[in-house]
């Protein structure tokens, strides 16, 4: 990531490249939901674990969708650091950092975090649809954008069902445990 290592204004030029991005984004999102579900399992937070698993299931449908769109095509191989994301990871990969994830997190937090990343996905496609000079790429981006918008709407509705947890939800009366 030193100056010379910065990607040289990479852009998506072809439908295949776009599909490769879409597939990576959806697949990584599924894996991340599963990882977060595992983390919540390990930390005895079954409610949020179940929620993340459900989100993973939904996301899998997106993977299927992209796979369907790519049928018969050979997608280019892109190294993880060569994708054109403007986010540290693919936009729909939920952050795993301490600002966002906590073992005492509640469904509200999980959905809010998912929503944040789905919106990043929407933004990614929207930007591409607006900027791409190629008709086929633009068209596909719009299509993918529409799917993500649906997902965002769903999550918004879902989030509305939960109250925002009160301050102090992170507090644990017990100290951490000694391990090794």
């Amino acid at each position, binding site marked *: 990531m*030193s*100056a010379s290592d910065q990607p040289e204004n990479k852009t998506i030029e072809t439908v295949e490249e776009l599909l490769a991005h879409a597939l990576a984004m959806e697949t990584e999102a599924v894996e991340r939901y599963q990882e977060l579900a595992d983390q919540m399992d390990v930390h005895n937070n079954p409610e949020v674990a179940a929620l993340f698993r459900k989100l993973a299931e939904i996301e899998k449908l997106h993977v299927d969708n992209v796979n369907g769109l*790519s049928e018969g095509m050979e997608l280019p191989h*892109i190294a993880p650091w060569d994708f054109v994301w403007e986010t540290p990871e693919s936009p729909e990969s939920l952050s795993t950092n*301490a600002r966002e994830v906590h073992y005492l997190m509640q469904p509200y937090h999980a959905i809010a975090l998912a929503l944040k990343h789905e919106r990043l996905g929407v933004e990614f496609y929207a930007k591409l649809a607006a900027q791409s000079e190629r008709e086929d790429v633009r068209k596909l981006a719009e299509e993918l954008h529409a799917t993500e918008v649906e997902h965002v709407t769903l999550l918004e509705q879902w989030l509305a069902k939960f109250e925002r947890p009160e301050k102090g939800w992170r507090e644990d009366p017990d100290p951490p445990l000694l391990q090794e």
Partner: protein
Amino acid sequence: MDATSACASFTARDYKSDVKPVWCPGCGDFSVLSAVTKALAELSIPPENVALVSGIGCSSRIPAYTNVFGFHGVHGRALPIATGIKVSRPELTVVASGGDGDGFSIGGNHFMHACRRNVDMTYIVMDNEVYGMTKGQASPTTAPDWEKSKLTPQGTGINPFHPLVIALASGANFIARGFSGDPNNVARIVAEAIRHPGFSFVQILSPCVTFRPEQRNWKDGVRAAPVEATTDPARAARRLMSDDGFNLGVLFRGDRKPFQPSMKASVDSVVALEEEFLL
């Protein structure tokens, strides 16, 4: 996964096991696991040809979470184990990993000598400036005024160790720093570290959500190193000595020849050696 890796034979998932990490949610080490598996997939190294060795500590739990040949040894000794594997099996890709306490305190001597020996392997230190597994004591990279440990309630009062400077002075052939909040770049650095001949040292700033919650702000402090990686140790030394610990990227690429004794036999059998004993 179906089509992403048209050219690559492996995906990151192929390098992950089904063992669920014990790390706290929010821990930076998850990203490091993700980055390492992505790097290996990108390099297309079959999982059975990779050895991942660690010592003791939170981050040292990493081998069990992978699907490569792992070794979770004792505290501080990941590097000698990795050295033994690599020198005796040079065709394997060997990665040692662990935390700052494991690598720089109890394993400090091995760190220096592994840099000096320059065996072709990669050492990844997930640095959170604290001992997590023993409930939050100061490590060699902890600031002197950190007062949150019961063991050093007034702070350690001693200057932190500068692992990159030590690595350079000891002869490491590749020195880089990554941040767990930027896993794709960590993956790139790790991939380059593995490819680079000789001993590659990668420090990854990896916040501890439990004992160092303030490290959540590292996200705002890190930056890409403003200059290109140098191959000149003297320039690297000047840079690293004035480094604030938040410059990310490859900082030094050396060209020292890796240590690897020849393994070509010159005799057919042990019997040939016995002649020297004849009167």
